[in-house]
């Protein structure tokens, strides 16, 4: 009798205590809380390449140029720039009256310091340097003018100056406090300044009223690192998080979010494209007819509609519609199982021929897509088995060594939204991601556009590369995934960036 009673009392008191604490709405006036899936661990622009670094740091730092959600390049810390010496020298005229968050003035010295550091010993330790290796040095002309000398022309450089390693850092602060301190206590010229950082938990920023672009509407900006998608969405539903950024949200949870009157889903075309690349060196996929047949056998539109809930767009080359080099006249290969069967017959492929599709083991959605693909292939007489690989193993041992199955997963998409980034890595001989193809004609095309600054000419070449690749059916192009954001309706003026580089100056909360 006593035991039962004490047990009940025990449980009741636990429940009541929980209720007593409750969960008060967490909104302080003008605070936006963002859920990011990963803690980059380091806020120094030269030490990381993670997308989730930029989701936070695009608020803390500025680059010489700026590229927002509309994908247009505009002045940042540089008011204007001119190409000199045939494109091998770029003169930047810097913005005046800009200060860093610690009061230090922004000027030519800060720009020189930033690039000396990026290209020098400190930068050598990190993954950012190689992206800017075309820069030879930065010379100070006067307090507000610098010359950037290049080893070669680089048509994508101006875009790259808008983010990541090229973001401008404060010389005095870093020299005084040291590199380690700077990693955990960043200072920049951006619209939000650093307040505090707890590793693996979150980072807090507050508005920097003296920003050259005008004071932000929010007073505080907080990021919480929440890896597990269902947890992030639970926090959003409970009202403790206002914005969940990609790639957290699984397609399957979109109806749950949309059904909630206080929440909405915002999706924009993202930079990432998915494909199954072919093993063009071994097996039945060595024959281009077989490759074309396999592409025609799969109804990619149906997959996008049903498995991806429409949250993707079909592609005609290995890039999205926002990519520079995208050819709008190219149409995706049509779904035609009959023509596929004919081609397979012509190529003497026996019915029931087995092939292997290699995929990553941590992408549940893509696995579903592949199950659909396997069943489409079965309908034209190909028996596909799906083999999941752990990411690192695939990255290191399987793909570069050319040990993949007939098809292997490849998703790509750089924030620069320039086809060169993908095409060179995928199609140029001896690149890590291209273990099978070695085509001198294609190599020449790829190399020819790397240094041309004439945008129109470059675009033509990139388009011709796209056509060449599709004609040779180097991959089964699948889709361009949308970047999916989930947001509380109290957040106003949120312009969803396709590349997760959030800049929240104009955002406000009710």
């Amino acid at each position, binding site marked *: 009798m006593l035991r039962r009673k004490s047990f009940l009392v025990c449980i009741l008191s636990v429940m009541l205590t929980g209720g007593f604490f409750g969960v008060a709405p967490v909104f302080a006036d003008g605070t936006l809380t963002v859920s990011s899936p990963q803690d*980059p661990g380091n806020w120094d622009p030269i030490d990381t390449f993670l997308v989730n670094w930029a989701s936070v740091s695009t608020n803390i730092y500025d680059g010489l140029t700026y590229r927002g959600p509309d994908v247009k390049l505009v002045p940042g810390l540089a008011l204007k720039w001119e190409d000199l010496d045939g494109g091998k020298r770029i003169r930047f005229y810097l913005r005046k009256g800009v200060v860093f968050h610690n009061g230090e003035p922004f000027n030519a010295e800060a720009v020189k310091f930033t690039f000396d550091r990026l290209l020098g010993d400190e930068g050598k330790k990190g993954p950012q340097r190689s992206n800017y290796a075309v820069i030879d040095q930065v010379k100070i002309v006067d307090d507000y003018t610098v010359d950037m000398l290049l080893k070669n022309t680089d048509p994508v450089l101006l875009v790259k100056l808008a983010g990541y390693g090229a973001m401008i850092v404060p010389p005095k602060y870093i020299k005084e406090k040291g590199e380690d301190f700077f990693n955990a206590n960043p200072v920049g010229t951006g619209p939000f300044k650093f307040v505090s950082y707890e590793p693996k938990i979150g980072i807090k920023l507050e508005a920097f009223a003296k920003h050259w672009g005008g004071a932000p509407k929010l007073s505080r900006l907080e990021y919480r690192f929440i890896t597990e998608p269902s947890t992030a969405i639970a926090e959003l539903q*409970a009202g403790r998080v206002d914005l969940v950024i990609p790639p957290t949200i699984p397609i399957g949870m979109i109806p749950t979010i949309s059904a909630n009157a206080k929440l909405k889903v915002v999706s924009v075309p993202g930079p990432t494209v998915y494909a199954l690349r072919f093993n063009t060196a071994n097996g039945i996929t060595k024959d281009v007819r077989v490759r074309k047949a396999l592409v025609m056998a799969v109804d990619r539109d149906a997959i996008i509609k049903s498995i991806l809930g429409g949250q993707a767009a079909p592609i005609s080359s290995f890039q999205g519609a926002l990519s520079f080099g995208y050819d709008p006249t190219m149409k995706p290969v049509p779904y035609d199982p009959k023509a596929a069967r004919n081609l397979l017959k012509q190529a003497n492929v026996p019915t029931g021929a087995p092939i292997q599709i290699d995929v990553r083991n941590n992408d549940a959605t893509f696995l579903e897509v592949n199950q659909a693909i396997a069943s489409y292939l079965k309908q034209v007489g190909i028996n596909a088995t799906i083999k999941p690989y752990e990411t690192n193993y695939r990255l290191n041992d399987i793909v570069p060594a050319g040990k993949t199955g007939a098809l292997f997963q490849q998703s790509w998409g*750089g924030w620069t939204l320039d086809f060169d980034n993908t095409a060179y890595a995928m199609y140029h001989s001896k690149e890590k991601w291209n273990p099978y193809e070695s085509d001198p004609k294609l190599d020449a095309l790829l190399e020819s556009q790397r240094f041309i600054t004439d945008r129109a000419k470059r675009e033509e070449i990139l388009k011709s590369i796209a056509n060449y690749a599709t004609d040779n059916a180097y991959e089964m192009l699948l889709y361009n995934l949308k970047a999916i954001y989930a947001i509380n309706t109290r957040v106003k003026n949120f312009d969803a960036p396709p590349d997760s580089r959030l800049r929240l100056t104009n955002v406000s909360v009710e």
Partner: protein
Amino acid sequence: MAEFLFKRLLQAIFVVLAVTLIVAFAVRLTGDPALMLAQGAGSVTEDDLVRIRAALGLNEPFLVQYFNFIKGMVTFNFGRSFMGGTPVATLIAKALPATLSLALASLAVSVTISIPLGIAAAVSRGKWLDQLIRILSLVGLSFPNFWLAIMLVLFFSIFLGWLPPSGMTDFSSFIMPATTMGIILTATNVRLVRTTMLEILQAQYVMVARSKGVSEWVVLYKHALRNCAIPLVTYFGLQFGGLLGGIVVVERVFNWPGMGTLAFDAVASRDYPVLQAVICILSFLIVFVNLLVDTAYGFIDPRIRRE
């Protein structure tokens, strides 16, 4: 006693060294941290990767790297995380208390529920209460902890809005994670308490105490429980070790900033220093807890103390 402790300490050191050596070796077979760091960088060349590897200290032979790690361990300098260069000691200083407090809270929840329930089941053996408790414990055993965690969040955070869905903030944030782990542990513990109590309740001294008129409460909680303490303490101590491992899933669902989250992220990004340090500390903890359990016997049972 001192000799006993010394021997156990040596054992502990040996176990920790063996575990860390195996883990350090195995993890180096599975991929390149430099590549993980540069993931997404389209223009990283082999030269850059070589340079990054040198900066991370990966160019040294394995035994040199391992020796440096052991050397650092002795001075509590666990190196720096590959992902961002944060000193590993800083990460662990934050994560270890978080995991330990959650583990202790879970154990506390489990003990608080399982002892009264187990005793109730033992006392009402064969009757409806006993059956009910045994069925409930079977159901509890069958819950996958991941599912239970999400259900609790759905009900208490989203539907009722009483508790925070994730994160380690105040006392209320402990409730759901500790309950999730606690319920799963309770399922086994109830049965253990029941079985042990059943045995003890047959003993003659229990009959004597009852016939002397001692209150049932004192008979059960003072005399009988103390005598079944040894198997219970052993099992709870062993559970602590298992808890530390199993807590990874709960930490992930509740976004708990503990050792589980640290280990999970370290494995995914091939962050050797963090992974080695976490495994090292966790193995040491498990061995230490087992040592405590063995020492505790002496306090519970004076006969062992005298041996």
